[in-house]
């Protein structure tokens, strides 16, 4: 996080670097990314066909596709996807709404931060899995406990990175605000918030991933619907193709969210030259 801030804050500023493009249309980054992904799939399929890997244990790309056609076709998997997505969305959105303002408040008032810091550190260090039984006691086995687990996974990271962002606001810019006698509120809006955005976006990126971990963990432990449940129940029935399908769907969703965050980041930071 510190690296991001120092390059945006203090570094000599360069014009944006455009990613080089092949064939005029497809960015190199995407092209090579797809090549890597497809390469692994091909390797996987070949290994299974040659008998190097057991398809009963790790399935194969064609096996996964067959499972997808069946389960999407008869509508068996859609409720699992919908439930997991809802759990992720509610828990993560609650974390955004609560953690970012909390981070700004704690970052702005040092004493409050001193009080909360050890608690945050303890919460951050405790694997959320360890809290799941407690959460189930509090919220039951229904979807509410899933929201809670996802929220818990996501919010600490977000709060901590927002606090870091607030505290990393460069003295030089605070001096300028003070020199022009900006009010506290204007200083907050014109210096603190913009200079913490890179930190917050990093926090959002990490929190989005952790929230996804929360979805799967909560569903593994106690649920009867959701992709985590789908994976675990098919695992116990030794149905490797469906397990792999569930894993790929979650992974794909993670990539998708990451890409959305990357786009938001670009929009927010017209002022920051692209760093690649």
């Amino acid at each position, binding site marked *: 996080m510190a690296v991001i801030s120092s390059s945006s*804050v203090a570094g000599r500023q360069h014009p944006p670097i455009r990613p080089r493009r092949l064939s005029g249309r497809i960015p190199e980054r995407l092209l090579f990314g797809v090549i890597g992904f497809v390469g692994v799939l091909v390797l996987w399929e070949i290994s299974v066909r040659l008998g190097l890997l057991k398809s009963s244990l790790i399935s194969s790309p064609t096996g996964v596709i067959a499972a997808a056609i069946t389960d999407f076709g008869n509508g068996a998997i859609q409720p699992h996807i919908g439930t997991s997505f809802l759990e992720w969305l509610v828990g993560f959105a609650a974390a955004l709404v609560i953690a970012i303002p909390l981070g700004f408040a704690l970052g702005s008032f040092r004493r409050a931060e001193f009080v909360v810091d050890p608690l945050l550190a303890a919460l951050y260090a405790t694997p959320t899995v360890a809290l799941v039984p407690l959460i189930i006691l509090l919220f039951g086995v229904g979807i509410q406990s899933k929201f809670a687990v996802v929220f818990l996974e996501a919010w600490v990271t977000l709060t901590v990175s927002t606090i870091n962002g607030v505290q990393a606001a460069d003295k030089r810019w605070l*001096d300028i*605000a003070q020199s022009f006698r900006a009010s506290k509120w*204007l200083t907050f809006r*014109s210096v603190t918030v913009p200079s913490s955005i890179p930190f917050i976006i990093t926090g959002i990126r990490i929190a989005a991933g952790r929230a996804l971990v929360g979805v799967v963990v909560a569903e593994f432990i106690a649920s009867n619907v959701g992709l985590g449940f789908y994976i675990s129940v098919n695992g116990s029935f030794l149905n490797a193709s469906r397990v792999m399908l569930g894993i790929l769907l979650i992974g794909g969703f993670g990539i998708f969210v990451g890409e959305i965050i990357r786009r938001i980041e670009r929009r927010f*930071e017209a002022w920051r030259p692209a760093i690649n």
Partner: protein
Amino acid sequence: MLTGGLALSAKEIRMEYRDRQTRQELVAIEKMDLDIPEGQFVTIVGPSGCGKSTFAKIVNGLLPATHGTIEVRKAANGRDHAMVFQDSSLFPWYSVLSNVAYGLVCQGVSKKEANERAMPLIRLVGLDGFEQKYPYQLSGGMQQRANLARALTVDPELLIMDEPFAALDAQTRELMQAELLRIWSTSKKTVLFITHQIDEAIFLSDRVVVMSARPGRIIADIAIDLPRPRELRVKRTPEFVAYEEKIWNLISIQLTSVGGRTGEAA
């Protein structure tokens, strides 16, 4: 109250601070008295670390002096003083226009009116057409033009400039010096300029105040009697060179007296 047409009166300024690592009490400024009459361009020069930037920050109200008083003439409409900071001090998340309008927004002027009032200053410093650009899209010289416009927008009685051209390359710096004189001649602000460049000090100023090495104090106050308007070629006249020699001698004595610690940063 300030009398006799003074824009700034600093009396017996003393600045001490505690070094965080060594926990030693250090004296940055021993004692400084400085009066600047309205409309005068005064430059403080001195070796690195002599406390000249610290003095600018004290006048600007960013640092409280340990002892002494600062009086700045109260402005009728605008601000009493405004500061042009060292390089890359524009907010990178604001366009040039928003940066220049910032001082007015700080005074509670509406965003729209602030932008309207910023435009003439953007034109004055020669940045029209660049108002929607972000700082990283500007050269160092252009950034410092915007920095100057930002300070001028609040119409200050006293303009404090803390080594504004230090990070520019030699040619751009010369150009900016000439530009500053052009802009100054239209606005006739009182200026307190801080630099370690002797030729810059002489070229710009009515008066050059020379500071000693730390602990800083004033060791000379030299009136620069060169006709205005000045052009860059004045730097090659014998009078100019004589001033340069005089000030250089004053500073070089300071440098040798601290035993070759001249490489130290401020």
